[in-house]
């Protein structure tokens, strides 16, 4: 009996070993394989992302070079910075003074912040009103907003700048009004989508408790729309901060935004100094990088959400 049991145990043991061993080694090799492929991916991605950063690196490096060291067309932009070619901050100070970079940054900041705040506030109000109060008029307005998203800027470029001139809107406040009007389509469309997802009961309860629409909107609806507000604010900030054509057409030539000032470095005002251009490009990038790194999470979420909706 005991021998039989032993035999059985032995048999069982052996079978366990037999089935375990190949399993073990294949799992180990699979793990090793995935580790190796993980490291290969890591190396490839490191090389790629360094390549991605190279243009930025070259611009920063060349912004510290002397004028003669970055003459056009000599292939010198790739030469590393040396003691002889280093010029300190002079490209920054001289370039900024020449093209009025500081006032350009100020203008861009004012236009972007005010336009985005006004846009988010006004369009969220409009979207809530026309979603909750469906009449023939509000439906037509809604479809006009949606329609405007399809129309490229070139279609209204000439007539819009003409009309703005007629109405004496060739100024920073006028430009902000135009941004609100031209951005309204997408904002109202996105906000309405999210308003529809808010349960109506909450608003009804607020109104029964005696809130008028203003109180209902600001105390009940707007707090619930906060994530959407952030998404839309980020998408609109990226658009308005970087926009070139509209301010170029609307603003008087002495009022510049950052893209217009950069454009001015390249000869349209008789200023052609590559060192200055490089330095101004660095100044233009820095605020964007800070903005990106500080609200990266929202930006990436906003991009994904904006893509699904728009």
């Amino acid at each position, binding site marked *: 009996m005991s021998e039989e049991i032993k035999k059985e145990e032995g048999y069982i043991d052996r079978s366990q070993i037999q089935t375990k061993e190949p399993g073990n080694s294949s799992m180990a090799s699979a793990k090793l394989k995935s580790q190796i492929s993980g490291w290969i991916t890591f190396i490839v991605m490191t090389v790629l992302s360094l390549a991605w950063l190279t243009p930025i690196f070259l611009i920063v490096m060349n912004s510290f070079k002397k004028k003669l060291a970055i003459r056009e067309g000599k*292939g010198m932009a790739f030469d590393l910075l040396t003691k002889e070619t280093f010029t300190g901050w002079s490209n920054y100070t001289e370039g900024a003074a020449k093209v009025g970079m500081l006032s350009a940054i100020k203008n861009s900041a004012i236009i972007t912040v005010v336009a985005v705040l006004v846009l988010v506030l006004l369009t969220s109000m409009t979207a809530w009103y026309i979603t909750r109060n469906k009449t023939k008029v509000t439906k037509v307005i809604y479809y006009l907003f949606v329609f405007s998203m399809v129309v490229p800027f070139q279609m209204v470029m000439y007539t819009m700048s003409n009309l703005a001139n007629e109405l004496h809107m060739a100024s920073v406040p006028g430009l902000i009004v135009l941004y609100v009007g031209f951005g309204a389509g997408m904002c109202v469309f996105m906000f309405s989508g999210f308003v529809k997802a808010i349960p109506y009961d909450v608003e009804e309860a607020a109104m029964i408790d005696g809130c008028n629409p203003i109180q209902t909107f600001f105390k009940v609806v707007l707090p619930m729309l906060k994530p959407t507000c952030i998404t839309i604010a980020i998408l609109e900030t990226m658009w308005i901060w*970087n926009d070139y054509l509209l301010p170029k057409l609307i603003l008087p030539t002495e009022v510049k935004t950052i893209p217009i000032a950069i454009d001015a470095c390249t000869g349209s005002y008789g200023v052609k100094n590559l060192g200055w251009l490089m330095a101004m490009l660095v100044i233009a990038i820095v605020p964007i990088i800070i903005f990106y790194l500080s609200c990266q999470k929202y930006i990436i979420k906003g991009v994904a959400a904006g893509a699904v909706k728009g």
Partner: protein
Amino acid sequence: MNKKTYRKYFPLFVLPTLISFTIAFIIPFIMGIYLSFCQFNTVKDAKWVGFTNYIKIFSSEDATFLTTLLRTTKFTIIGVIIINVGAFLLAYFLTKKVPGTNIFRTIFFMPNLIGGIVLGYIWKEIMDTFCQKYFHHVFGYGGANYGFWGLIIVMSWQLMGYMMIIYIAGIQNIPEDVMEAARIDGATSFQILRKITLPLVMPSITICLFLSISNMFKLYDQNYALNGFSSKTNLVAMDIFDTFYNHQVNPYSEGMGQAKAVIFFILVALITFVQLSVTRKKEVEQ
């Protein structure tokens, strides 16, 4: 709440948006359609000329429109393929267990925050020096090919990161148990990619295709900063601007610019309608 109380609040909630919308969009749009049938130098002395502008932009008298349309189409197709294949590959590998994947995503997405003008000038200087140094015998200096492919490189550098984010969201939406089941059944990673990942991220692919198509087709800033005004490298958006503001010799130029803009609008609208009908169909199937 009844309709009457709502109506009282119309001026506060809707009117400010509606007024700026009217100034920025509704009036310019209607005027734009009307002016495309007129000869004018300023809006006030517009004279009705019927379809003359439309005939002129498609006749041999102004050869730029058809060539730029063709060039833009070629540019869009090539660019969209490169951008989406690249973006999908980036997303595919960055959703695997790779150390530092968040840093890589951050870096690849970064160019999207830099505006088109700044971006264009960054690359212009680099490409000028680079091509002068190494590739001058291939492209020559300032040639049309050089401008075309340069712009494709710039747009890939910019848009790949953007599309990558959307593809990553799509891949992460695939339920883990589906992948697990396929792995247990012994599917190779290539089979999983072809039979599971690709079909399940189809919605993201559609979104990215249309986003990149409309971005490339409507491109202006990068084209302007990198290439400047040139009939050899202009894309449609720039050709329209060029016709409006730079061709002052032809008395019809403003009208022709507006007619080009109307055609451009119709093409963009067509792309959008195709997109809508494709996505609708997909939703029904699901």
